């Protein structure tokens, strides 16, 4: 069934606009229960996304959109919550919020983490409050880690 290209078409869609559309050889996704990597020919799948980084390994394409993929040939977006639909040749990511790592405000993320920790402490017996606090914390931590990872020299 292999197409001559063996490439995935990856789209990242946010409520505001289509952020990214490109051919890729593989995508790493932060599904709610752990990271997964999708290659060409993956079985159809629908999954919830957690907070984390989407990493698209770009396929060399004729049109020169180097700014999209960077010099390393991969493009990284920090997403929080959403869905992904995987088809053998197409991956569509619906993210509630997506940022480039450079756009992340680390200070704000840290404040968010503190707020989450405070919520966690005050949650008491309520399961709902715990889940919510956990959401806030994991979102903040994903943001911080993706921001620092990019800032680190390779």
């Amino acid at each position: 069934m292999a197409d001559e290209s063996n490439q995935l078409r990856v789209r990242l869609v946010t409520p505001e606009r289509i952020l990214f559309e490109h051919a890729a050889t593989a995508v790493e996704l932060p599904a709610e229960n752990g990271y997964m990597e999708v290659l060409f020919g993956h079985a159809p799948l629908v999954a919830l996304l957690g907070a984390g980084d989407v990493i698209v390994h770009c396929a060399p394409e004729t049109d020169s959109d180097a700014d999209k993929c960077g010099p390393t040939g991969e493009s990284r977006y920090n997403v929080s919550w959403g869905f992904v639909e995987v088809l053998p040749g197409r991956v569509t990511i619906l993210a509630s919020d997506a940022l480039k790592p450079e756009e992340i405000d680390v200070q704000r993320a840290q404040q968010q983490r503190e707020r989450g920790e405070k919520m966690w402490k005050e949650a008491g017996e309520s399961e709902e409050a715990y889940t919510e606090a956990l959401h806030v914390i994991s979102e903040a931590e994903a943001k911080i880690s993706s921001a620092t990872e990019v800032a680190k020299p390779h």
Partner: protein
Amino acid sequence: MANVLDLRRRIRSVKNTRQITKAMKMVSAAKLRRAQERALAARPYARMIVSVLESLRRRVDLYDEKTGNLCNALFLTRPEKRVLLIVISGDKGFAGAFNANILKTAYQFINGNPDREIDIEAVGRKGRDQLRRRYPTAAYTDQTDENGQTHKVRSPRKGPVEVTGDHPGLLVKLETSRVLELAHNVISRYTHEEIDAAYIVYNEFKSVIAQRLVVERLLPLIDLENPQITGAVEPSAEEKERQAEAALSAGIDIEAADTAEAEEEAKKFGTAEVDYIYEQPAEELFAGLLPQYIFSVLFHAMTESVAAEHAARMTAMDSATNNASDMIDDLTLHMNRVRQAAITKEIIEIVSGAAAL
């Protein structure tokens, strides 16, 4: 009778007004263009959410096989005794009958359901101000439960209709996080049975000539593919013509941009005729998807309403500019007549003076 000097002054002042209205029209046109782009860019996401929900609903039983529970409370319908009405109006005036029309539709809805208790969430400053004057604001008191936690408890109603909240400045920047917050708020009220249904009143805006005022049902979810429009007011042909005229003079496309292809593409999301692996159980998927769906409906309503507001302002300002031009013409004619009359009178005086010699 006014003398020439007075008339000249009036002409000057009308000219100034015309300049202002013209500038406002151009500003609105630019804002409209941007708002239209935003509304367009937001469409794929909304479309995809609907598609994936629809396909999920078709494939997955809404009731759990083992426990027989409904997998999400938002599908539950109850007799509509308490209704939430979200009124999306504009933040500013000078937009013709835009805000008045929205409020009129909201009042119609309220008066048409006298036996229901209605909560109002006002989005947009103009609507909020008016609704607050007309209806009492819901009051909350803090109560401490046995665990020492404080809860907000709503005080007894002052009347069948109450304003429960407003969202100042929401429309200015339209941040997704705030709209999402509102969506969560609506959902939590519904699942806690504070409300039995939710409706939104807003101005739908497909393009300059295709817009209408609608009352759309947000909750409960009955049919996802087709919006549940319970009332719609179309603008008259004359209004449409005015809108189109104003748009043309400001250089705005009358027809909506062609997005059929993108829409088709988006419709396919999550609906391919294959057996999907669902990573999470349906219950969790619904729990994650439905807030996004409610959010996207609200966001869509707001982006369209913002576009409609700018279009309405543009049209109103175009009319004002035209009226000012007409007025200047009239005044100029009048001024010339007065001046001519004064000259004629002087000549008569000179001639009759000469004849008397």
